[in-house]
C-alpha cells in the first residue's frame, strides 16, 4: 500500500512537474522547452481570470462556509428539538454530486425560469437577477451553489467540535456573566482551533479541486468569467491537446497547495508528545 501511494501521489506529482517543461501536445514527449509553458500561462488571460476566480471562490467559500457552518452548528447545539431533522436537511446536499448541484442551481438562477421569473411574475417587472448571465457575478453563483452543498459538512464538523467542549467552560462563562455570543467569539472558537484546522483542510482541498460544479453550472461562462484553474488544466490537457501547458498549470496549482500545506503540516505535525501515548 505504501508503495502504491508513493507511486501514485509522489510519482504523479514528479511526472507532472517534469512534463510541464516539455512541449508535449496530446501525448507526452520529452521535448524540453524550459519555462516557455509558464510564460505563456501567465500571459493567458483565461489563466489569470481562473486564478482570480479561485481566489474569490476560495475566500468566500471558506469564509461563509465556516461562518454559516459554525452558526448553524451553534444553533443546533442549543438542545433544540428536531435536531435530527435539521441536521439531515443541512447535510443532504452533500450527498448529491456536483453535477446535480450545478443543474438545479442553474435552473433556479437562470433568468428565464428561476428566481428572476418568479419575482417578476409576482409583479416586480423590473426585477433583474442576472447572476448567471452577467460575467461580473457568475463566480458568486458558483459560490452560492458550492455553499449550499458544502456547508452541511462544515456544520457537522463544527457540531462535533462543539460537543467535545468541556461543559464547565460554559458554566464558568455564565458565572462570569459573559453573554453567549461573546463566549462563542472569545472562548469557544479559539478553543476549537483543531476543528477549524481539520475543516480548513477538508474544504480547501475541495476548493482547489473545484471543477464539476463550474462545468455543470456555467461551463466557465459567460465568456471566461467563471473559469477555474482545474478546468483550465483539464481543458488544456484533454480538449486542447496541450499537455505541457496543462501540466504547467497544474504544477502551479500544486505549488500553491504546497505553500498552504507546508506551514500547516509543520504546525500540526511538529514533534509533540501526547501524554501516555505511543507516538504515532
Amino acid at each position, binding site marked *: 500500500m505504501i508503495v502504491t501511494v508513493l507511486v501514485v501521489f509522489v510519482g504523479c506529482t514528479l511526472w507532472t512537474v517534469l512534463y510541464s517543461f516539455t512541449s508535449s501536445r496530446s501525448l507526452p514527449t520529452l521535448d524540453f522547452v524550459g519555462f516557455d509553458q509558464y510564460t505563456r500561462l501567465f500571459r493567458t488571460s483565461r489563466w489569470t481570470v481562473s486564478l482570480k476566480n479561485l481566489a474569490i471562490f476560495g475566500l468566500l467559500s471558506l469564509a461563509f462556509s465556516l461562518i454559516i457552518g459554525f452558526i448553524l452548528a451553534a444553533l443546533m447545539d442549543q438542545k433544540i428539538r428536531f435536531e435530527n431533522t435539521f441536521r439531515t436537511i443541512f447535510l443532504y446536499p452533500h450527498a448529491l454530486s456536483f453535477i446535480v448541484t450545478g443543474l438545479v442551481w442553474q435552473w433556479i438562477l437562470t433568468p428565464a425560469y428561476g428566481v428572476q421569473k418568479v419575482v417578476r411574475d409576482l409583479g416586480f417587472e423590473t426585477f433583474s437577477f442576472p447572476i448567471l448571465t452577467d460575467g461580473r457575478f457568475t463566480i458568486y453563483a458558483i459560490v452560492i451553489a458550492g455553499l449550499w452543498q458544502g456547508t452541511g459538512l462544515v456544520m457537522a464538523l463544527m457540531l462535533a467540535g462543539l460537543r467535545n467542549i*468541556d461543559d*464547565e*467552560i460554559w*458554566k*464558568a462563562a*455564565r*458565572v462570569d*456573566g459573559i453573554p453567549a455570543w461573546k463566549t462563542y467569539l*472569545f472562548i469557544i472558537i479559539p*478553543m476549537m482551533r483543531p476543528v477549524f484546522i481539520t475543516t480548513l483542510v477538508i474544504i480547501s482541498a475541495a476548493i482547489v479541486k473545484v471543477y464539476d460544479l463550474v462545468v455543470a453550472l456555467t461551463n466557465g461562462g459567460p465568456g471566461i468569467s467563471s473559469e477555474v484553474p482545474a478546468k483550465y488544466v483539464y481543458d488544456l490537457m484533454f480538449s486542447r491537446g496541450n499537455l505541457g501547458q496543462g501540466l504547467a498549470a497544474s504544477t502551479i496549482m500544486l505549488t500553491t497547495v504546497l505553500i498552504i500545506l507546508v506551514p500547516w503540516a509543520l504546525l500540526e505535525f511538529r514533534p509533540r508528545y501526547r501524554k501516555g501515548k505511543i507516538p504515532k
Partner: protein
Amino acid sequence: MTSVHSVLIKDLSLNFGSISVLKNLNIEVADGEFLVLLGPSGCGKSTLLNCIAGLLDISDGQIFIKGKNVTWEEPKDRGIGMVFQSYALYPQMTVEKNLSFGLRVAGLPAAEIQKRIAHAAEILQIGPLLNRKPAELSGGQRQRVAIGRALVRDVDVFLFDEPLSNLDAKLRSELRVEIKRLHHKLANTMIYVTHDQIEALTLADRIAVMKGGLIQQLDDPLTIYNRPRNLFVASFIGSPAMNFLKGEIVDKDGSPVFRAADLDISLAAYRPQQRLAPGHAVIFGFRPEHIAISGQAGPAGCSCEAIVDLDEPMGADSLVWLKVAGKAISVRVDSGRRYQPGEKVFLTFNPAMASLFDAVTENRL
C-alpha cells in the same frame, strides 16, 4: 431572619426528565460558613451546586442568597463565584485576561479591574504568572487561577466543585491548606463539593453528607466523624474505614453487651440515643484508631484474641488487619512495632468512641 443566612435553600427539588435527582432539600448556610457537600459519585452534589449557581433550572423550591430570592436570577447576578474541577480556564487567554474577562464584560473601569487583579494575585501568589497561558501552568497553578477568577468577582458566596480532584496528593494537601487560609482571610461563605473525606473533614465548618439526592447528615466534622447518624455516613467517612461487626444486644448483669459470635463487648460506656433493648439486632462500628492492640490479654469483657492477617505500614503509623469474629477488621497502630501475619494479639475496644446502628433501619442507636 434570612439575613443571617448567606444561602438558604428551601424545599429544593430537581428532576432530569422523570429522574428525580434532588429531593426536597433544605439547607441554611450561615454567613461566613464553610459548608462541604460530601457524598459518593452521582449523589447529586454537583447538581445541587449548579442549582445554587443558577446553572440549572430547578424544578421546585426556592433559593435565597443574602436574603434575596435568586431562584430565577441569572448566575452572574447571584453574587456567587465558582471554581470547577477541570479549572475551566479559557485556554487561549493569559492568566490576567482570564481574571479580567468577566469584569471587562461587566464594564468595570480599568483601574478597578487592575486593583482587583492585583489583590487576587497577591492573595493567591500568582503575580508572576499573569502573562502566561493556562497551558503553561502546572495543575496547582491553574487551580489557583481558577480560584482567582472567582475572587476578583468580589462576591459573597464561593462555590467549589471538586476543585482539587485533578491534582496529585501532595498538591492537593497544599492547596487544601491554602483554601482554608483563604477562607479565614476573606471570611465569606463557601460551599465546597468533594468526595474526599479528608478534604471535607479538614475544611468544613459543617459537612452535609449526601446520598441519592438526600442529605444524610448535616453537622460539624467531629460530630460526623465520631457520631455518624447512620451506617452510610459511618462507612463513608473515615479512611481507613470504620470496622463493622454484626451482632445483637444481650443483657449481662443488667448492662447491655454487644455479642457477635464468641465476642462480647460491654456497652456500659456507650451513650445511646435510646434504650438498648436486649435481642435487638445491631451493627457495632468502631474506627481503627479506637481499638487497642497488645501482645497479652487485658482485662476480660472488652478484650479478645485475634490473628494478624496483614500489616500495612503507612509511614507514621501502620494498619494491622486482623480476623475477629470471622470478619476482617483493621487497627491503627504506631509504626514502631511491626506485626507478622499469623501472630496472635489481643484487642481492647473502647465502646465510648464506638457507634451502634440498628441492623434494619441502619440508623444510630
